[in-house]
């Protein structure tokens, strides 16, 4: 088991803290094996074994990662809940397993993942390739769903913490105080389970559980305008000891200078060592003072040259699966080669439609969420990265596999879209019933009246007041009375 905390001051003055806990289990988790668990949590192990899961990625996120001001996210995740799972090819009914899996996960993590059904599940064909060991990528075994409405809070964090071998009693997890973690600009917790190679020869399979938690603290406002921060200021806790079960427990502090201003940071106490790594195409220095020339990637984001294309060119692969009402959502996948310094716009027209009245959420005027779009890219890196052993390198650099040093993998999520659908008047059915009933009652009443009223001949009488009045007037005029 390894644990790691990466602290990174963000350009805007915030501080991002990324926790990663990795538990490796040198056993085959597949169906049928008698299960005796040590560090690996039993709940997840049983789930993987029972449902035939090959790879599971669940992210619960509150807030949105502002790539423009914060830079690349260490681990991208869309707002809300995201779940994608690769199943074993021995699973007979993937849809049933997916349904059961999401229900069980919803129980484990106290999240409303049970709302995942066929209407918000897609099977991407180009993106979301397995991150772990895989032979063959039959995309029919993949399921992907996003619930943008999901609100992440303490009740999701507690079960997540319970999965850690040391709980929140020792090690880095001591810092995970819900009160502080949710008092932040961005909170994202995730669980990744995947099969990995047990050793370099890769003859046996081990299972890896990574629990990641990324949180962004707005230290600028909470620190009275100073950019200083400390663990205590952010988490209102300090680290006292390492988890005795962990084979590695490290804190990385990103002290790479961000721009030419050569802003010097002072880290106390003095770091034990200095680590230089290439992360996301960027040479990063951790816990030392070092100069880094701004890379092309950083400068390209600040470029403002716009070059609009009518439609994306060079699209070599387009996969479009149209939606079926109430059965499955739209899925549009495109493989595009983006020209340098360009802006690519993909627009989709949609019509607003009326839903069935039972399909509206309890607060229909809030709007309906459209899941964020996902951009997965292999970005060419300017800094050559040498192949490193996964076991040796820090955890924050080793979740996404990189084939060679010349490029790195990045997955970006856009903001979820909130669409206002026409909202009917929900008291309308009752109004309609009332109106119809009234019309029926009026018709019925007159009909009834007509049929049951007794008619009889009226004796001519001396007339009423009006007649007498008319006769008096006639008398005055000298006309014969009525």
């Amino acid at each position: 088991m390894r644990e790691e905390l990466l602290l990174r001051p963000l350009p805007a003055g915030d501080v991002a803290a990324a926790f990663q806990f990795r538990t490796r289990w040198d056993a085959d988790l597949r169906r049928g094996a008698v299960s005796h668990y040590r560090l690996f949590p039993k709940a997840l192990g049983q789930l993987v074994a029972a449902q035939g899961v090959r790879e599971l990625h669940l992210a619960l996120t509150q807030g949105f990662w502002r790539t423009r001001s914060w830079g690349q996210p260490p681990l991208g995740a869309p707002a809300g809940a995201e779940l994608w799972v690769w199943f074993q090819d021995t699973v007979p009914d993937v849809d049933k397993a997916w349904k059961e899996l999401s229900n069980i996960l919803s129980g484990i993590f106290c999240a409303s993942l049970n709302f995942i059904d066929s209407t918000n599940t897609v099977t991407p064909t180009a993106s979301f390739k397995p991150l772990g060991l895989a032979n063959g990528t039959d995309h029919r075994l993949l399921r992907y769903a996003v619930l943008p409405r999901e609100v992440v809070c303490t009740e999701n964090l507690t079960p997540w913490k319970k999965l850690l071998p040391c709980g929140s009693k020792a090690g880095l997890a001591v810092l995970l105080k819900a009160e502080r973690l949710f008092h932040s600009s961005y909170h994202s917790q995730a669980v990744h389970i995947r099969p990995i190679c047990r050793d370099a020869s890769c003859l046996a399979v081990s299972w890896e559980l990574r629990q990641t938690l990324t949180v962004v603290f707005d230290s600028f406002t909470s620190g009275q305008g100073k950019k200083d921060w400390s663990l205590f200021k952010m988490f209102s806790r300090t680290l006292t000891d390492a988890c005795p079960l962990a084979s590695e427990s490290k804190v990385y502090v990103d002290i790479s200078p961000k721009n030419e201003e050569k802003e010097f940071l002072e880290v106390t106490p003095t770091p034990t060592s200095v680590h230089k790594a290439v992360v996301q195409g960027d040479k990063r220095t951790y816990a030392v003072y070092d100069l880094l020339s701004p890379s092309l990637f950083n400068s390209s984001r600040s470029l403002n040259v716009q070059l609009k294309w009518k439609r994306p060119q060079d699209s070599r692969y387009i996969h479009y699966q149209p939606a079926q009402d109430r059965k499955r959502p739209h899925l549009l996948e495109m493989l595009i080669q983006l020209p340098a310094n360009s802006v690519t716009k993909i627009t989709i027209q949609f019509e607003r439609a009326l839903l069935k009245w039972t399909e509206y959420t309890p607060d229909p005027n809030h709007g309906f969420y459209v899941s964020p779009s996902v951009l997965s890219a292999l970005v060419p890196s300017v800094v050559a990265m040498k192949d490193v052993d996964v076991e040796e390198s820090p955890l924050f650099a080793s979740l996404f596999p990189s084939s060679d040093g010349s490029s790195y993998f990045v997955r970006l999520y856009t903001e979820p879209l909130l669409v206002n659908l026409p909202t009917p008047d929900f008291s309308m059915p009752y109004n309609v019933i009332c109106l119809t009933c009234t019309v029926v009652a009026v018709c019925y009443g007159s009909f009834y009246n007509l049929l049951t009223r007794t008619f009889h001949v009226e004796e001519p009488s001396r007339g009423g007041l009006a007649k007498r009045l008319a006769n008096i007037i006639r008398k005055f005029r000298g006309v014969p009375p009525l």
Partner: protein
Amino acid sequence: MAAAAAAAADEAERSRGRRAALCFAAIAVLLGLPLWWRTTETYRAALPYAGIAALGRLPFQLAVPVSVVFTPGSVPADLPRQLPYRDVREEPVPVGSRTDVAARYEEVYRSITAREAAALGAATPREADAALHALQDASPGSLTVYVVPESSSLLPQGTNVYMGKHRSALVRAGQGLAALRARLQQLTRVMSFTASSIAAALADRVPDGQLGPDARRHLKSSLGYEITFSLLNPDPKSHDVDWDIEGAVNRYVQPVLDKLSVVANFSVDSQILYYAVLGVTPRFDKESSSFLLSAHSLPHVINPVEARLGSSAASLYPVLNFLLYVPERSHSPLYIQDKDGAPVPTNAFHSPRWGGIMIYNIEAPASPQASLPLHVDVDMVRVMEVFLAQLRLLFGISREELPPEFQVESPGNEGLADWELDRLLWAHTVENIATVATTLTSLAQLLDQISNIVIKDDVASEVYRAVASVQDAMAELAEGRLRSAFQASKEAVTSSERAFFDPSLLHLLYFPDDQKFAIYIPLFLPMAVPILLSLAKILREARQRKKEPTKMD
């Protein structure tokens, strides 16, 4: 004349109006109301209400086939008939509930065959039992009793009854038939069912206070159980505890579970939890320089631990937890004290229907300088002994108090004799039947009370299947076929639970009657008021007309 004609026309007109009003009323009542009722009614398939009501009152008849085999020289002189002969002995089982339970021992008396006689010639009862087992094919629930002469040297001195590992027993003939009868009666009860085991199975129907303290200890009958062994290490800094749970499960637990697999499905798993602490701070005892947990604080131990145990994600079966707790270094050694203040020798306790906890103390290292963490390998034999005893206790197959003249063969590695399994099957079959009766009766009651519950055809067919299976199980019980009775009762439980927990039952539960009527009031009120008014008017006129002729006279 004109006035009379006008009056006559008037009267005709009035009666036409009356008829029209009556027609309206008739149409509304005869056509409109049924139509409305029919279209807004909740669908409910026909259910066997009579059968369900009868289930709760069905008398249990438990038939036990017993063969009594006489060896030469053991036949009592006052035997009523010539061997072989059959006899049926019926006796009520007092369970103290509304249900009648009757035991029916179908006894077959015969003399011994040559091969059985040869088997009984063994030196010890254990060898004789093994040899006899090879000769008989005893079905579950049946018993074979071999009567040996009073002076036989096969049984040790002082032992009159010997119960083997399988479904047979050896009994000394005793003085006369009456003594033998008494021994047989006691033996058959121990080896099949007693009033207390049946009462525990019928616990739902027995009023409180009439049950013994053990009655609610046993696990409820279920189609499967999950057994979880957890090693709690609250102090991983000083103790590095390792246990060979896989080997221990294969060696000690699996044979028992294989034997019990007739009763239910079992799955076994284990986990190690770190930093899991008990909810109670133990008291330090200066005299023994140890920490003590008193009996009355034990109920508070489980809850904080249970939060860490985690629920089983993969199945819905009840979970049996067995926890091995290694106390922190600062709280070692830790002992459990019973009510009298004496330390419990096993240092373990169990919680009814939940599982057991054992405290495993680690001896402090001889030299205080020993490096931490201290590596410890758990002695699994000691642990598994306790856990297996607790497992037997939780399943209700613990030994009852027996008179000293009874000797019980140790079941060996299987941990369970055949007749103990039969006892479990008897109890579970009766419990299953009682459970089904309760489930179906509550379903019927619910349907009676809440008119909005929909019963679809498939739910109804499950109910029919459950009723049929229960009747089947009862019939098989009366015939003495325990295995098939148990199978039928299991099917009945499955069907009845499926029917009771079917989600389609709840579909219309959130449309209460008052709302339904509120919606229809704008239609009903304007229609009903004229009809009612004209009916009242007609009534009034009719009454007046009845009075008028009497006035004329």
